[in-house]
């Protein structure tokens, strides 16, 4: 059995996973040292934190990125972010990345937050009146068409629901 990293005397029974500077690190502690740090194991080998969630945050955020297999070479036309970078770094490079990687991101957001729909404050940028206003429904119809053409039926179903609400 692994030794406790703190006292180096007793066996490590608590395995604490943390994200430090985007690196997932795991600390192995004995019961006594863990208790000293305010963490207790509720049984041998169990983790006090929701490590499954934590492992998907930060560096690993894109590791389980769904849809990558479908579009492994997708690249954002504006900032050049690649699917591989997104997978490795778990960060987006610009506003247009949200469109370039929409399918996988939608699934990721649902996993992280339980849904993809923002219900908080709405925001209108100060220059919103400058160009011709694009109706939400028009934009959705456009995106639905693209999704159907790309045979991305899961996304198409989502967009259809949104379109119904918008109309």
């Amino acid at each position, binding site marked *: 059995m692994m030794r406790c990293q703190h006292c180096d005397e007793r066996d490590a029974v608590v395995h604490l996973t943390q994200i430090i500077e985007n690196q997932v690190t795991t600390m192995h502690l004995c019961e006594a040292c863990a208790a000293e740090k*305010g963490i207790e194991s509720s049984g041998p080998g169990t983790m006090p934190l929701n490590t499954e969630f934590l492992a998907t945050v930060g560096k690993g*955020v894109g590791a389980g990125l769904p849809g990558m297999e479908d579009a492994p070479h997708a690249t954002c036309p504006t900032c050049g972010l690649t699917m591989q970078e997104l997978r490795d770094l778990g960060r987006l490079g610009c506003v247009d990345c949200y469109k370039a990687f929409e399918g996988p991101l939608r699934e990721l957001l649902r996993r992280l937050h339980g849904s993809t729909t923002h219900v908080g404050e709405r925001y209108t*940028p100060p220059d919103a009146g400058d160009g011709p206003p694009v109706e939400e429904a028009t*934009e959705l119809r456009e995106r639905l068409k693209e999704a159907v053409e790309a045979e991305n039926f899961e996304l198409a179903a989502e967009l259809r629901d949104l379109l119904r609400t918008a109309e």
Partner: protein
Amino acid sequence: MIDLSLLSDGGMPWLDASGAHADLVLSTRVRLARNLRDRRFGLKNDAAERAEVLVEVEAATRDTEALSGAMLLRLDRLESDDRALLHERHLVSRDLAGLETGNVRPGAGLIVQNRVGIMLNEEDHLRLQGLQSGFALPEAYQEVNALDSELGQRLAFAFHPEFGYLTSCPTNVGTGLRASVLIHLPGLVLTKEITKVLQGLSQVGLTFRGLYGEGSEVVGNFFQLSNQTTLAKSEFDLLDHLGKMVRQIVEYEEQARHILLRDAPAVIEDKVWRAYGLLCHARSLSVEETMNLLSGARLGVALGLIPNVSLYTLNKLLVLTQPAHLAARYQGAAGLTPSEIDIHRASYVRETFQHEDRTL
């Protein structure tokens, strides 16, 4: 060394032990992550673009009510000791201060005035933050929300009709809101109830961290409790949910303290007085030991067992005994060995309590 004397209370009014439940809750923070729509995010932008972000945002803040007279600190022009100092005062993240890598990103800045500030060119272009002493979620949000509304009329933020505010990391999308409450829970740790409470947190969409945020260890029974998700709930619901949970934990902690005093008064009295005794008389103190002893003394003060010591002093010592603060106090401490620094720390803590004794 940078001069923070122009900031109200040196940039630490959030530690002045005022506000609701100040005996348990040290401070409340609400931050909003925002990006400029027409600029690449932190991961992909270059130094010139960061400089533009800095200039644009600074100009926009000049017209706001909250930050019209604010101070802009260019972190990329500060020495690492000064950046560490700002981090220890909870004004900037470890990442923005470049403490992990030793390199600060060009354009990294902080605009701050009273209880509101903006971190510039962190992973997101703007991280607006409101900090309050005690348990004050609505107040902290109100201030930061007012600033957000004003800035949003002057700058075009990245916003998506379905996903909400767009951020560099998908974990912040939607409201971009992370609220956290810094709370002292020695009663739950001593009665060994803390694991249950912390496990319960993750089941209700909340998370915890140590005193210095992401990646920091829990030391001295100080926990930062915050929301884990940012999308699919309104700002009000996120704050309301965290607030309810914190109130419940405050109640659990009070019950735990009550049980400890009822069932083991001698043990508790001995524990808090030992902590205070060591703080007043020890000749060498490490950071970790200091935080643990401050935790013990804080429990004693909150329970009314230790008179003539203020929570304000204990709060301030938590920050002022951190390495960069100590180094600033003892100029030239950079050349000192860790054990010499520990001697300085103990002497500073002793002096503080002697002074407190005289003033009360």
